[in-house]
């Protein structure tokens, strides 16, 4: 059996096992509200694993390992931001949210406000953030399949994306929160085992000497010591046409790094699919314990990504990490304009003669896959014995199947978060004005899950060329700009009111999305000498020089929340008393608020 068949068999077994789990979870569901909170009876430990399973996406596993493998230290900056972010959730959000809400983020933000405008806003930003994040995962699934199973036919890739979408709809509609939680627990468990196995094997190769591992990685990367310091990917020194440093473009590039850091650290506590996980435990104390378990798991995992990334850089050849370089119809290596690289000679070079190229000519090579997403699976294959060996095939298949499982668990969590918010915030509280029965609500939630799943399938097929890490960082920036200000203000600021909440959410959301449209990710930058590989290469309207909008849009969200609040006369002192007492003590926990 070859690696591709084995990978498919393992992945299909995971799907079969999870379908059984989800079916059983669905059958044991009694109350309608179980759809949202899984019965609110998971332990802190179980929920901690589920949070880790919900959070550690394909972008974490494949993306960070790949970024470290190709750019060295800079990939580590992602890991740190993704982990430190959990302290915001632990210290400020998890316990008060569990204590004062029931099913959605909107429950807490609208607690003491006029229900309809605030819930509409909360549902809008929940769906927007979730869809961006869903697209990232589904595009990632399509890419992963083509990498691991060698499928290059675009039609086949579309079927894979559709398959992932259908599976997530099935998980959510049949299993609800309970089924989704079990899928996430199983996935977290598999991911930790897979990552630990690879880490131990990598460190073993270097006699557990990390300095030697780093040395070998910097040597093999060809970038020497620069590979071990920040600067190869983020905050680069930008050069002008004459080769001198351009101060404006360099500053923009460094500010972009800070913007990314801000979005990562403040995004997590505003991600709807993470927030609703706190409702699956019975008390604030268990919510706190879940976050502590999650921090332990996620922290250890991100430490392991260092070994995986640098291990791949040290052990796997650059050509393999890039999946080779672009060649023409005659098999000759070409540069980005399609011209044959002659390197001063008269004839070109084939891939077999790569090593004969001079250093200058090597710079012209165009990697087939510059993202490095295959670094972790390729490392697994190497550690198992290399290409063509049984051990290598088994390792590649196992790690590939775990990566699929990772994507499935995350997309299920996202579909659940957005369909819950649609049904509970928009349908029950805005359209039906709180008069819907729990059964009606859940029915709408399931229909919404199908609708959101179908929309996500078609959007993901349409935007397949977008970079996965880019889509994830947008989701983080939007969550930090649109959701976090409203959540923090409502929990801790007495004067906060309806207008403040509505302005904070729409203001932050709009700022993030508008700045993205005018960023060098969508069109060519107006500021000269900036690095850009935009979606529309012929268009020039990127007046905003940063790729990540967070540095501007997050403070803007906070500013709008403040401005909306002070320009409105609405006061809700009595309701704030109730919110504050409930959020700190858990009195009347899980009981709906009477309006």
């Amino acid at each position: 059996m070859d690696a591709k068949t084995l990978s498919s068999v393992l992945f299909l077994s995971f799907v079969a096992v999870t379908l059984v789990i989800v079916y059983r979870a669905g059958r044991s569901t009694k109350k309608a509200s179980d759809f949202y909170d899984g019965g609110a009876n998971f332990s802190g430990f179980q929920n901690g694993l589920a949070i880790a399973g919900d959070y550690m996406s394909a972008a974490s596993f494949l993306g960070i390992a790949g970024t470290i493998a190709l750019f060295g230290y800079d990939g580590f900056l992602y890991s740190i931001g993704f982990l430190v972010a959990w302290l915001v959730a632990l210290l400020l959000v998890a316990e008060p949210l569990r204590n004062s809400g029931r099913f959605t983020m909107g429950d807490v933000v609208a607690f003491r406000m006029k229900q309809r405008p605030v819930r509409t806003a909360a549902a809008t930003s929940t769906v927007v953030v979730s869809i961006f994040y869903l697209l990232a995962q589904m595009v990632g699934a399509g890419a992963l399949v083509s990498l691991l199973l060698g499928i290059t036919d675009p039609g086949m890739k579309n079927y894979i994306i559709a398959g992932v979408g259908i599976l997530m709809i099935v998980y959510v509609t049949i299993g609800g929160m309970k089924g989704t939680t079990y899928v996430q627990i199983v996935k977290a468990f598999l991911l930790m085992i897979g990552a630990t196995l690879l880490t131990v094997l990598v460190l073993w190769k270097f006699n557990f000497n990390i300095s030697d591992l780093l040395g070998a990685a910097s040597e093999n990367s060809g970038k020497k010591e620069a590979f071990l310091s920040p600067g190869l990917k983020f905050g680069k020194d930008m050069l002008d046409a004459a080769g001198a440093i351009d101060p404006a473009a360099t500053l923009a590039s460094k500010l972009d790094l800070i913007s990314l850091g801000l979005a990562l650290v403040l995004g997590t506590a505003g991600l709807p699919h993470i927030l609703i996980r706190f409702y699956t435990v019975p008390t604030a104390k268990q919510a706190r314990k879940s976050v502590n378990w999650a921090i332990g798991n996620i922290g250890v995992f991100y430490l392991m990504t260092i070994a995986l990334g640098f291990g791949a850089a040290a052990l796997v050849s650059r050509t393999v990490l890039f999946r080779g370089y672009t060649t023409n119809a005659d098999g000759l290596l070409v540069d980005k304009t399609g011209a044959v690289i002659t390197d001063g000679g008269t004839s070109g070079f084939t891939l077999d003669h790569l090593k004969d190229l001079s250093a200058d000519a090597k710079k012209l090579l165009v990697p087939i896959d510059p993202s490095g997403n295959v670094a972790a699976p390729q490392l697994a294959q190497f550690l198992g014995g290399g290409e063509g060996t049984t051990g290598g095939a088994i390792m590649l298949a196992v790690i590939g199947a775990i990566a699929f499982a990772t994507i499935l668990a995350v997309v299920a969590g996202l579909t659940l978060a957005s369909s819950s918010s649609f049904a509970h915030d928009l349908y029950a509280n805005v359209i039906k004005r709180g008069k819907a029965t729990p059964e009606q609500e859940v029915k709408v939630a399931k229909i919404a899950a199908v609708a959101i799943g179908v929309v996500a399938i078609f959007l993901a097929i349409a935007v397949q060329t977008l970079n996965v890490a880019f889509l994830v960082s947008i989701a983080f920036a939007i969550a930090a700009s649109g959701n976090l200000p409203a959540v923090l203000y409502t929990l801790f600021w007495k004067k906060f009111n309806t207008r403040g909440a509505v302005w904070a959410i729409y203001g932050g959301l709009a700022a993030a999305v508008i700045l993205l449209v005018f960023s060098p990710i969508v069109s060519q930058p107006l500021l000269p000498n900036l690095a850009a590989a935009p979606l529309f290469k012929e268009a020039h309207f990127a007046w905003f020089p940063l790729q990540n909008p967070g540095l501007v849009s997050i403070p803007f969200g906070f500013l709008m929340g403040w401005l909306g609040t002070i320009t409105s006369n609405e006061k809700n002192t009595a309701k704030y008393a109730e919110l504050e007492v409930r959020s700190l003590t858990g009195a009347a926990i899980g009981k709906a608020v009477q309006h």
Partner: protein
Amino acid sequence: MSEQQHGIWEATQASTKFQNLRKSYRGFAFPLTIAFLVWYFLYVVLSAFAREWVATPVIGHINIAFVLGVLQFVTTFLIAWLYERHSSHKLDAPSDEIKHEVEKALGH
């Protein structure tokens, strides 16, 4: 919800016991949040603007950037542990006590 019930929340909020709980929570969580955010941004800013300094080797191929990065992990684990300790020693008991009083008054 009746006027009387609203009164219960406001009276509880105004009570010394609740105010002490609130102070004990905010007095711990807020400064710690500011501290870890400052420490994190110091790390990010150094990564962006102090490239040469963070590239200084410490032991073998391990440089200052690497040490700072691992220290971020250490402080995250440490803060999570400190907060758990503070909550379970100082916050859980008074918070439970107030919860029971409120629920009794509300007739739950």
